[in-house]
C-alpha cells in the first residue's frame, strides 16, 4: 500500500493550516495513501477533448443589481466570534515591535 512520507503529510497540514499530532500524522500517511491510490484509477479514463464539468446545470450566473440593501448589524454579525472588541474581531498581533 502507498504511504505518504511524513514530510508530505506535514506539507499538506501546513497548507491546510491544521495542527496535527504525531499519531495523527502516522495514521494519515496510510489513510491518505490508500485514498490517493484508489482515485488514481481516474487515469484509466480517456478524457482527451472532454471539457471539464464545473457545474451540474448549464446556466449563466446572475448578477444582482449594485444597490445597497439591508445588512446585519455589527453586533449581530460579530455575535458568533469568541473574541470581539470595539465592533471588530480580535486577532493575535500580526506585527511585532
Amino acid at each position, binding site marked *: 500500500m502507498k504511504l505518504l512520507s511524513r514530510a508530505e*503529510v506535514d506539507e*499538506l*497540514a*501546513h*497548507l*491546510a*493550516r*491544521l*495542527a*496535527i499530532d504525531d499519531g*495523527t500524522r502516522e495514521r*494519515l500517511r496510510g*489513510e*491518505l495513501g*490508500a*485514498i*490517493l491510490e*484508489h*482515485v*488514481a*484509477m*481516474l*487515469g*484509466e*479514463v480517456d*478524457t482527451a477533448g*472532454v*471539457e*471539464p*464539468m*464545473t*457545474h*451540474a*446545470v448549464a*446556466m449563466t*450566473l*446572475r448578477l*444582482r443589481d449594485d444597490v445597497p440593501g439591508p445588512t*446585519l448589524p455589527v453586533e*449581530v*454579525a*460579530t*455575535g*458568533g*466570534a*469568541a*473574541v470581539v472588541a470595539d465592533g471588530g*474581531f*480580535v*486577532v*493575535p*498581533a*500580526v506585527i511585532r515591535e
Partner: protein
Amino acid sequence: MDDVTALTATTLAADVRAGRRSARAITDAFLDRIAATDGAIGAYLAVDVDGARAAADAVDAARARGEALGPLAGVPVGVKDVIVTRDLVTTAASKILAGWRPPYDATAVARLRAAGAVVLGKLGCDEFAMGSTGEQSAWRATANPWDLARVPGGSSSGSAAAMAVRSAALTLGTDTGGSIRQPAAFCGVVGLKPTYGRVSRWGAIAYASSLDQIGPLAATVADAALALEVIAGLDPRDATSIDAPAPALTAALDRGVRGLRIGLPREYLPDDLDPDVAAAVARARAILADAGATIVDVSLPHTRYALPAYYVIAPAEAASNLARYDGIRFGARAKDPADLDALYARTRGEGFGAEVIRRIMIGTYVLRAGSYDAYYRQAQQVRALVRRDFDRAFAEVDCVLAPVAPTPAWPTGATPTPLDMYRADVFTLACNLAGLPGLAVPCGATAAGLPLGVQLMGRPLDEATLCAAGQVIERATGPAPRAPWPPRGAA
C-alpha cells in the same frame, strides 16, 4: 386518544387547516415522542421546546383570526444540523461550531416556516455531512430505529432516524453524495434529492458546493413532494438556484407510470450485489412493469469512475469551503496561541474530527500545484463523462431504477477504513456529479426486518416523474411502517 405522530405531514396540515386538530396539540405530541424515543435513538442534537410551542401557537392564532394557512400548517419538522436556523444552535455536528447560534435562517427553513411548519429542533449527522453512517459526529452517533446495533446511514442520520420513529413529521437533510437517499433507505423512509439548483443552498453550511442540495425526508412520497414544492425555487441569495417554475409535484403524484420507459442500468446490478438489495430492485421492477411501464436495459459505462471522481472533487471543494473556520469570526478558538498561524492551525486541528481532516488533506493534495491536472482536472472531465452517460440514457428512457446502497444497514463500527465507508456511496454519488434528481423509496425488508429501498434517478428538473413512479412502488408495497417502539433488541 389516537396517535398523532403516526399521521403523515399531508394529513396533519389538512387537519390543522380544517380545524380538526390544533397545531399546539400536534407539536406537544411530537415533543412527547422525542422525549420517549430520543434517549435510545439519538436523532436530535437540540430540541427547541419553547420555540416549537410558540410557532404552533402562532399557527393556531392565525387560524382563529381567519387567516389562510400554509401548506405545512402545524407540521412539526426537524432540520439537519448543517442547515442554519436563526438563534437555534447549529454546529454541523462539529466541535469547531460548538454553541454557535446563527443570526439568520436558511432559505429552505424560512420557506418551511412561512408555510406554517413548526421547527422542533436540530438533527444529528456526520460532521459537516462527511460520512455515510452518522458515526462521524463530534457529539453523538444516531442509532437505527429498526435495530439499535446498526447504523442509520449518513450523513443525514438524524433526519432519517427521526422519520423512522416519527419523532418528526417531516425532516430536512442534505445530499452531497447520497446523504439523503442512503439513510432514507437504511431507515425505511422516503428521501428526495432534488436537481442541483432546485433548492437554495443559502444557509446550508457548505461541504462541496457544486454537489450539495437540501431535500426532504418523509413518511410518504406525497409528503416529500409537498415539502419540495414548499422549499424549491429561485433565491436571489444563491446564484446557482435555478429560475424555473415551481414544480407541481403533488399534482403529478397520481399520474402513474403507464407508457413510461424505465431504464435498469446494468452497472448498478453487479454480480456481487447483496441478494436482499437485488431482490428489492427486482420487486420494484416487477411493480413498475405491472403498472404499465416498459423496463429497458441501459448502460452507464463510466459508473465505476464516479466514486474516485467524487472523492477528488468533494474533498477539493471541502478544503476550500472549510478554510473559513479560522477561529476568528465564529465558532471555537484555540486558547493562547503564540501567533496568528498558530491560532489558525490549532483551532482547526482541535476543532475538526478525523474524517473532516482526512478530506481537507485530500482536497489540499489534489488542488496543489503539480497534482491539479492529474487529479482535479481529470476528475472534472470524468464528471462530464458521467453526465454524458445519463444524457444518452435519458434519450431512451424517462428515468432509471437502481439500488440505493450495496447492502442494508450494517452494524455500528463495521466500516474500519475510510475507503470501506466511501464504497457505500457507490450507487448514489453519480446522481450528484451529474446534478440529477434522485428519490429513495422503501421497497420491502430483509428477513431480519431491516428496511430495503430502491432509487429512481431522473432528468434534470423532472422530480415529478420520480414522485409518480415512487408512489406506484409505495402503493404496491404498502406505506412504509413506523419503526417498532420499544425497539427490537432493547432490554
